[in-house]
């Protein structure tokens, strides 16, 4: 079983060319072969997996297969899974077993999907490198093909257990991006055919860009957040990670729609989004926001951006430069709003009802302080502190309210641009291809987030759909990606245009099939 896509898998399953058993076992094997990449935090037990496989097999035999029947899907470890540990990459929830499934998990299961396991992430989704997890960092699977000299090292050394292992003596490696690094890496490596991440400021699109997969953040309110452990409620969106745009649409259509358990989901009746194979590009107007020409943008990404814009134009699309004057305020505004909601959302982690309880039981305050100090890493604690400061009565207007106003301005920029006839925006997703661990860890989490999220955060501010898709390889052989952003609920057009681009770009996906032919190491055969 080669690097198969979700759509191909469904077709083959329907035709009886393969079975759910074969697909799942292949993914499971890949998962085990790539164990050292530290992509998974919890793997579904073989017994449970077999149960799900049997049920899918039966569905195919009975002709009652649902859209994702028998498809292995992984979930970022911030989606609650009934009876299965959900840690958010934090000591605080290291032993937390939710008593319920997140709506995304429920809907995937209802659509026949098979849960492969829970993927690694930055602690509570705060990060853009997937390095700040209590389970250790995620290693980009492209390392296995672009820097063969580290393969043997990787195969011998266990992945780092804490986030400060990046000493220069160790072999260097490319990071997966984050915070949904585990999910993006798992899809790229073929350990599942689709994965869920979460996207608050780019946490799905950023690792998708670095791992060479499609990362999709739908319109805010289209997918239920019930059971997604929140970072910033007003920006969090479940993100979909797949190999292709078509796969993304398949997953989207299986999980979108109103959920009575999430009052912020769109209440209108939901109609499936359709990819138009015969998209008439002469009717499409692509905007290139000039403010996205960041000084630190790498030459290769810039070239790809230009080339892609030209491709659109050659195919008949109208391409023009647009202005989004407030986009540059995005990062600082995001920082304030994120910290405020974090300070609030994280008040519940007090060790009383659930989570780590580690402090003096002499007084409630000491118990709280002890548990929260030991349970959260410095990044989380820093954001809580800042957020509480911003929310103080004397600071509320100066920080929170002002940031909300700026958010409105950013949102209005999108509205303004889309109201002038622009259908989609084309931008980079990240500044470069995947950075090296040694370089990334030279700066702290906050600095890296501010730098890494600059192209992705605006879409979260406005709640509009955005997709990162891999379109080429860098000189180093690492994926390069761009981002398409559309107006609210423009998923059909966004998916169609992305699908058109994807067909044209013929991106060569990561192929790790050699792993199965070599028992000794990761080395290419």
């Amino acid at each position: 079983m080669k690097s198969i896509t979700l759509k191909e898998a469904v077709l083959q399953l329907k035709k009886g060319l393969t079975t759910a058993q074969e697909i799942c076992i292949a993914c499971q094997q890949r998962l085990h072969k790539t164990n050292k990449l530290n992509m998974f935090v919890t793997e579904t037990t073989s017994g449970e997996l077999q149960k799900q496989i049997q049920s899918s097999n039966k569905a195919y035999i009975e002709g009652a297969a649902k859209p994702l029947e028998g498809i292995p899907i992984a979930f970022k470890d911030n989606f609650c899974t009934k009876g299965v540990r959900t840690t958010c990459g934090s000591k605080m929830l290291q032993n937390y077993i939710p008593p319920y499934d997140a709506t995304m998990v429920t809907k995937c299961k209802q659509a026949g999907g098979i849960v492969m396991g829970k993927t690694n992430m930055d602690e509570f989704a705060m990060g853009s490198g997937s390095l700040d997890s209590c389970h250790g960092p995620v290693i980009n699977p492209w390392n296995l093909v672009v820097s063969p000299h580290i393969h043997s090292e990787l195969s011998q050394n266990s992945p780092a257990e804490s986030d400060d292992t990046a000493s220069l003596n160790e072999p260097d490696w490319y990071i997966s991006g984050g915070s949904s690094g585990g999910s993006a890496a798992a899809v790229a490596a073929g350990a599942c055919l689709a994965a869920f991440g979460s996207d608050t400021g780019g946490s799905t699109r950023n690792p998708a860009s670095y791992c060479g997969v499609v990362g999709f953040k739908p319109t805010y309110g289209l997918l239920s957040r019930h059971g997604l452990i929140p970072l910033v409620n007003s920006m969090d969106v479940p993100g979909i990670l797949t190999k292709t745009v078509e796969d993304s649409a398949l997953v989207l259509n299986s999980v979108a729609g109103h959920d009575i358990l999430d009052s912020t989901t769109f209440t209108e009746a939901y109609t499936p989004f359709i990819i138009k194979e015969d998209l008439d590009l002469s009717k499409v107007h692509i905007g290139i926001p000039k403010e996205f020409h960041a000084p630190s943008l790498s030459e290769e990404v810039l070239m790809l951006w230009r080339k892609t814009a030209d491709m659109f134009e050659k195919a008949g699309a109208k391409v023009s430069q647009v202005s989004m004057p407030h986009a540059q305020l995005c990062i600082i505004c995001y920082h304030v709003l994120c910290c405020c909601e974090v300070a609030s959302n994280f008040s519940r982690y007090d060790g009383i009802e659930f989570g780590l309880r580690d402090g003096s039981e002499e007084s409630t305050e000491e118990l709280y302080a002890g548990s929260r100090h030991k349970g959260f890493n410095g990044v989380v604690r820093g954001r809580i502190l800042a957020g509480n400061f911003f929310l103080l009565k004397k600071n509320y207007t100066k920080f929170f309210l002002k940031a909300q106003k700026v958010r409105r301005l950013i949102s209005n920029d999108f509205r303004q641009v889309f109201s002038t006839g622009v259908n989609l925006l084309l931008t980079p997703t990240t500044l470069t291809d995947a950075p090296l661990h040694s370089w990334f860890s030279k700066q702290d989490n906050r600095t890296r987030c501010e730098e890494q999220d600059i192209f992705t955060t605006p879409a979260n501010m406005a709640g509009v759909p955005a997709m990162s898709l891999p379109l080429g390889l860098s000189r180093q052989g690492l994926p390069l990606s761009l981002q398409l952003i559309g107006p609210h609920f423009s998923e059909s057009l966004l998916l169609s245009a992305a699908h058109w681009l994807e067909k044209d770009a013929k991106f060569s996906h990561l192929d790790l099939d050699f792993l199965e032919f070599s028992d000794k190491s990761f080395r290419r055969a």
Partner: protein
Amino acid sequence: MAASLTQQTKECIFKTCLFCNLFHKTIATRSMNIKRSHISATVQKEVQPEWQGVIGLEIHAQIKTLSKLFSGAATIYDANTNTQVAFFDAALPGTLPVLNQKCVQAGVMTALALGCDINLVSKFDRKHYFYADMPAGYQITQYRKPLAVNGRMTYMFQCSHNNKIERRSAQILQIQLEQDSGKSLHDPAVGYSLIDLNRAGIGLMEIVTAPDFTSGDDAASFVKDLRDILIDIGACDGKMAEGSLRVDANISVHRPGEPLGIRSEVKNINSFRNIRLAVDYEIRRQIQLLESGEQVVNETRSFDIQDGETVTMREKEKVLDYRFLPEPNLPPLVIHKDRSSVKSSQNVVVLEEVKSVLKELPDEKRKRLETKYNISLKNSVILVRANLAELFEKLVEHHSCDPAAASSVLRNSYAPFLDKAKLNSTDRPISDDGLAEIINIYGRGEISETSLGILLREKSENIHLSCKEIMDKNNLCILNDELLINAAIDDVCERNPKAVKAYKKGKTNQLEILSTKVKKKLDGKVASGKLYQLVKEKLQK
């Protein structure tokens, strides 16, 4: 000027009641005049009369719904520990609030009943503080844009010392929806604190008043009437002992004309009596502090029921900044004026529909009874409170009863009779015709108040007997023979020469004591008014 003077005098008299509770109990049977003179004497001697209490109330009323404000968990009181807890109520990560429209409906109904302006768009905020029985670390409430503002509620001020009744009104500043907290149970013996989340997340309405009250009686009277309204419209069961209705009082004192004093807040008062006691105690305490040159501290206090005192809970300066944040998981709460703006599938609250089911409010009812039937405020208050207004109107409208006689019989005889027989106001142990006949007999002066009670009881037990038959059988006819009455008066006066002497020295309350003795001697078969007249004549001879 005159009006304000009267007002001031009234408040003075009233306030002084605070200082001599015990004394008042002992003179409860004396006449009003004596009370007044005695009080003013006390005032001059002991207290500076110009201090005035200023009280504002925050009332937390649990909304009577089957499920909680934001979750599907049940709200049954006294259920087994932690059996009414949805995942959301335990603040499990990833859970989200889903607004219970039934709670909104109750809130809107209350807002209408209290004459508030309803915000067609209101919002929810998070109020942060760490407390073990508040699992999320914040309470969802309405801070910046509450459900309703700017109302006014009429209530019957009732003085606990002289039964004086007066119609007053207070301004409602706002009504907000919010979550109740859980309960902590501390066991110092083993050093455990146990948490029960059954109450966590039950819908509350916080009703905030302007500082319009002046005394414990005033505040308690308001809450009593508010409770009646809430029960009447079904928004709250009003069970104060179960914590369904809890009162926080903000209390300060000042001299009229001067700026308001520093206030303290007494939290979680759970009965009318405690409202009166706590407020009056706190006023007294603050006056004492100020008189001895000290300052009132802005702090939160609780009322110790055992000692009848308020005690410090925490100083306000130490209270945390609540760091309010708009609740990001709930869209703005929209109340629709009418159905036209509502999509059919939506589960929403429509103002017109709530208005249409709102019944006549107690004060509207009282006012109608007073103006339409010309009955006294006191009678209207009792008829409405005893839920007998409807019966009253029926008797007057359809059975041609005299309103004065009907209200008197219902209030003085029928309501106590129901009480004694442990019957509800909706039970009808006597047919309306029978009741009308009894009222007419009384109206014609054919039976005394005392005998009425017997007639009501007998009639309810012997439906087949006519009133005439019962009265004959039990010898209930009124005694009108003045010779007989006077003989009884003479007899009583002879046996009580001290009382007669006291009366002649000015102790007019002896009139009532002697009259009661005469009445007893005559088996209660004499009309009170007539008896008083005759006794008075005898004593003044």
